[in-house]
């Protein structure tokens, strides 16, 4: 691993090289052990301030980042607003400049608009970590998914990974696609045509509208959350119709490989995109994903903070 981390920010996986992604995964391995200790704390980020800047509600991702930063002894500030502070007449950039003026080191940002973290990264000095921007990317989710797959399968290259659900609006799908394709996996995306973004095959994936085709031969099946409010936007006729065509259940799983991994970025709509018996079943690594999320985020915080000292 000759490559060194040079990026101020982590905005997306599209712009990372294969070596940079491998570096994060390798670093994650070293950090995973810390969370198993009775005293889950290292001094790596002592004296550094991390701001969690969330413009969208989030429990899992925000908690995961917060724990990651706390286990590295950073000081944390939470800023959570229901929508853009534009409603108060202040632009995103102005808000970020104010935070910058308070001399923080890292801003972790979740925003409903694609590209919002890119705007900040251009505008302010602190490192920006994208915790999900619109329908664009969710790089740490992509990384934790890939890390979890690699833990089980010992490799990524050559694996068949199927991502099933609302691909069009999914930042999880895009980050998974970029990361997996760069590492040599064969990625298939599957969902209703109305939730398939145009020309997605140009990202190097195979497209199918038949879930059975996506299941058969897959080493990994990553089920995406369907946002129930999309029902009113004529993107699919009904939850029932969606669930019957694209929901993962025991019947459809009959054609799956015996060692398939079932993943889901959460939160799960039980009985919609995945039935409880599959979500909680033997193939499921859904909770492992959550555990690994902290390690991945510690690794990312470590790398962008530019801390060169060894892990304690």
């Amino acid at each position, binding site marked *: 691993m000759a490559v060194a981390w040079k990026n101020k920010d982590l905005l997306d996986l599209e712009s990372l090289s294969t070596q940079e992604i491998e570096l994060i995964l390798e670093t994650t391995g070293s950090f995973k052990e810390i969370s198993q200790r009775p005293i889950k704390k290292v001094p790596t980020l002592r004296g550094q301030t991390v701001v969690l800047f969330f413009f969208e509600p989030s429990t899992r991702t925000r908690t995961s980042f917060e724990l990651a930063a706390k286990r590295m002894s950073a000081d944390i500030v939470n800023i959570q607003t229901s929508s853009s502070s534009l409603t108060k007449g202040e632009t995103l950039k102005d808000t970020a400049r104010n935070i910058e003026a308070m001399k923080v080191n890292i801003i972790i940002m979740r925003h409903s608009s*694609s590209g919002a973290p890119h705007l900040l990264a251009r505008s302010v000095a602190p490192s920006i970590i994208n915790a999900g921007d619109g329908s664009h990317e969710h790089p740490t989710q992509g990384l934790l998914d890939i890390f979890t797959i690699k833990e089980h399968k010992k490799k990524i290259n050559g694996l068949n990974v199927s991502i099933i659900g609302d691909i069009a609006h999914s930042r999880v799908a895009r980050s998974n696609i970029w990361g997996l394709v760069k590492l040599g996996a064969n990625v298939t995306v599957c969902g209703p045509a109305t939730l398939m973004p145009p*020309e997605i095959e140009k990202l190097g994936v195979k497209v199918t509208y038949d879930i059975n085709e996506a299941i058969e031969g897959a080493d990994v099946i990553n089920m995406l959350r369907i946002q129930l409010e999309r029902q009113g936007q004529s993107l699919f006729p009904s939850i029932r119709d969606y669930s019957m065509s694209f929901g993962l259940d025991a019947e459809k799983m009959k054609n799956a490989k015996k060692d398939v991994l079932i993943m889901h970025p959460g939160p799960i709509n039980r009985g919609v995109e995945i039935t409880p018996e599959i979500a909680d079943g033997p193939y499921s690594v859904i909770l492992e994903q959550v555990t690994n999320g902290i390690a991945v985020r510690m690794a990312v915080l470590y790398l962008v903070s530019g801390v060169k000292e060894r892990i304690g």
Partner: protein
Amino acid sequence: MDILLKGGRVVDPASGTDAAADILIKGGKIAQSGKDIKAAGAKQVDCKGKVVLPGLIDVHTHFRQPGREDEETFVTGSRAALKGGFTTVLCMANTNPVIDNKGVVEYVYAEAAKAGLINIYTAAAVTKNLEGKELTEIGQIAAAGAKALSDDGKPVMNAEILRRAMEYAKMFGLPVISHCEDANLSRNGVMNEGALSTRLGLKGIPRASETVMVIRDIEIAQLTGAKLHIAHVSAKESVEALRQAKKRKVKVTCETCPHYFTLTEEAVSGYNTGAKVNPPLRTKEDVEAVKKGLSDGTIDIISTDHAPHSAEEKDVEFDFASTGMIGLEFAASLVNSELVKGGVLGWKEVAQKMSMNPAALLGLEGKGSLSEGSDADVTVFDPVSEWTVDAGRIESKSKNTPLIGKKLSGLAVITIVGGKIRYENGKFA
């Protein structure tokens, strides 16, 4: 003072002129055009190596007055126009308040007269407050001097309302300028739909959103026999639909803007809001189709869709950024480098599309020509000199253009309005 423009390449398609000649301007009119004109006492201007065009006319301008004088005013907009070689503009109606009644039309003309630098005409809305529901008082508006009707910025989604507007407008000879966009197909869209919108995770606007409305409006023009003009054509299929309509002799004209033949969607990569515009920048294929449409005569007019926006409206999340870019100061240069030097159009066609056809569309008597007796609106263009777009030297009050730092070829050196030199070699008079 009389002005004698000596030895330029005079291009006047209205009189079939394209030759080295002199032009004598007297009392606000073109007095004489021909070889070796002598005029004692006239200010002589050497135009050798320059192209002398009938003053450029932009049929699609947003000067933001009334309502957003922080972004543009008749004065700042006029200066931008003069620098770009434009002597006449048509303002769109989507101001605040909307130009949708006689009173606002009169206000616009009164304020424009105070600026007094170029010829400013206004369009008025097709429907009250651009809501697409109720017709404006078209008769009153026409009497107040509006030159066209347009809900530009928004489509008239109800075909019945558009039909009635066109029938009514026909009585007054007013063209209806249609912003073709199916609001359902484009809902929440912020860029062209395709591989790039998928990569960026931005909601796309399909080309069909424009084309279905172009086709609808062509049919309504056929039905009503009224004058229809399609604004800012961006999509390949729209160009083709217009080509077919013209073959069928439907009374329709159309325009495109420099950004649709010079830029593609790639300009928005990296979430560059400077390149966010509506209709959105499309693909290389569309750029080629627009050029083809220009060269074969399908596209009649080159307009700017000059759309000033404050930095605050652009320096935000891509989804929230305003759409549009300024264009008056760059249009002629882009036409020169991309179309003339690129072999798409000759100067005769440029004069047609940027002066003669616009004058005909708006029914501007005495404009769009350099023939004797015409209004002395003249643009002297240097097709050779190169310059770099510098935000600090933009005349428009707003600086929203993706061209900052880009090198352009050719520039207007003299702009004459009503027989007065208003702009000469970088200086305003």
